[in-house]
């Protein structure tokens, strides 16, 4: 082994501190803004730490009083939850059989490759006909319509992850069940799906993160509280004439909380999913 000199060790710690500061400072500042009184945020020189922590903006945004900032925020929160939930459920339902089929019958794999190649398409290449189609169906500004459109992003991705998950489950186990007389769906229920549960869960979480993050389609296809998602609501706040920057920061913290918690809890699975998804063809 290489013997590390004290200078090298000190250098490593200095770099580690720098990296931690770079990653944490903007996030910490977002939180500090959300609990700083408006006067502190407008002070010159800027007050970096509030004299008294003020959590009232959280209560304000989560209240449901009519025509308040809270009403707009809570409705967009509900819309985001509904759209992400429906789109994820639909994506998983489509992806499980398709992923299994490609995993067990590679000769149909080219069709999945084509579906995955659509990842390259910029959303703007689909947006005009999708807009006209949703308008024709009466699904503009509608959570069902938006969830359907989100499948363009979620379904290829989850199918891809699911396929590599099924690849790691030996066919022999399934074959044994089938020889014992189990049908296809019975084999799935008893053997395949319990074994694939971690992959299904990881894929679903990825799908939720993707849907939660989506902005472009939501901006185009929603127009008011009936369907606007959190990302659009926050962009409205950021671009609007809100004078209290702390309120914008609070909305950001609340919107970031679910994906950040998912990220921290699922760290290991997410990283291995990202790297294997990135490396395998």
């Amino acid at each position, binding site marked *: 082994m290489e013997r590390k000199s004290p200078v090298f060790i000190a250098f490593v710690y200095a770099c580690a501190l720098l990296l931690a500061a770079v990653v944490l400072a903007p996030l910490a500042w977002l939180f500090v803004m959300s609990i700083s009184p408006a006067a502190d945020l407008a002070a010159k020189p800027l007050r970096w730490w509030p004299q008294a922590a003020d959590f009232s903006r959280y209560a304000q945004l989560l209240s449901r009083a009519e025509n308040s900032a809270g009403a707009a925020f809570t409705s967009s929160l509900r819309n985001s939850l509904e759209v992400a939930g429906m789109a994820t459920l639909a994506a998983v339902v489509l992806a499980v059989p398709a992923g299994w089929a490609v995993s067990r019958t590679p000769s149909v794999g080219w069709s999945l490759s084509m579906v995955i190649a659509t990842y390259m398409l910029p959303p703007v290449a*689909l947006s005009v006909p999708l807009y006209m189609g949703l308008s024709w169906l009466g699904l503009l500004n509608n959570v069902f319509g938006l969830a359907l459109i989100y499948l363009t992003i979620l379904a290829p991705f989850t199918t891809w992850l699911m396929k590599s998950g099924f690849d790691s489950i030996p066919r022999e186990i399934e074959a044994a069940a089938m020889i014992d007389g189990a049908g296809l769906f019975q084999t799935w229920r008893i053997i395949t799906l319990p074994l694939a549960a971690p992959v299904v869960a990881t894929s679903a979480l990825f799908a939720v993160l993707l849907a939660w993050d989506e902005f*472009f389609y939501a901006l185009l296809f929603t127009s008011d509280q009936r369907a606007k998602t959190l990302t659009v609501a926050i962009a409205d706040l950021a671009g609007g004439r809100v004078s209290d920057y702390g309120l914008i920061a609070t909305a950001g913290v609340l919107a970031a909380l679910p994906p950040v918690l998912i990220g921290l809890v699922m760290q290991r699975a997410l990283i291995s999913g990202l790297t294997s998804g990135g490396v395998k063809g």
Partner: protein
Amino acid sequence: MSGTWMTTRAWLLMLPLLVIMVAIIGWPLVDTVRLSFTDAQLVGTAGNYVGFDNYTKMLTSSNFSRTLITTTWFAVVSVAAEMVLGVLAALLLNQEFRGRAVLRGLMILPWALPTVVNATLWRLIYNPEYGALNAALTQLHLIDDYRSWLGEPGTALAALIVADCWKNFPLVALIALAALQAVPRDITAAALVDGAGPFNRFRFVILPYLAGPLMVALVLRTIEAFKVFDIIWVMTRGGPANSTRSLSILVYQEAFSFQRAGSGASLALIVTLLVTVLAVAYATLVRKTAGSAA
């Protein structure tokens, strides 16, 4: 079980996915092609066939060339910076030190932060009157007066790139770290015994292991950066004076702000073609890198 039945069954199982994909990706793409040859408006008139008029009009407009340059610049600089910072962070995280696991865990945070929240956060940091960047630089006496970082054409794009890098370099770092941990210890030890210096060890021993995963990250990040919309829309809407307008924002303006569905569609297809060419060129490069690294 016979092969034909297996194949038929596989198609049946894929059918729901394929039907939905044709409905929400295949058909819209074909319809975009059709629209691109018409003068259709977003609402109302179906439009008449105009041949390649939209394409020639879009390709020769100064807006297009300027936006193409802006987008390319954004993509090249931000992806290059993300790659370099990501690899450096991964090399650091591959060292042994106290708190390494915690620091590695923190790297997931910028990645998990929604893009729009990241854009909003940096917009607040860059705020010309109350922003943290102005406050910090003034208090450190690095600048005398508050500046409008996103309001001046000279700094807006750079400010966007910093915000984009901060969110995306940790992902590159995590991918590179996973690859670094696959480098066998005895190989690096052998190179050390043979007297290879730090640079040569990185170049000849470690880099071959990194090349494959990094190429994949490079391809995915470049495609993403070329399609960029969200972060720019929230931070500058393409301004000031269109200095940060990306191709996706130009398509949005043409098709939705000006409601010119026909020319918007042609522009969208030009962008799609550019991304496809980029992706195919990259895929070839990846295959070569993977071949030489193995």
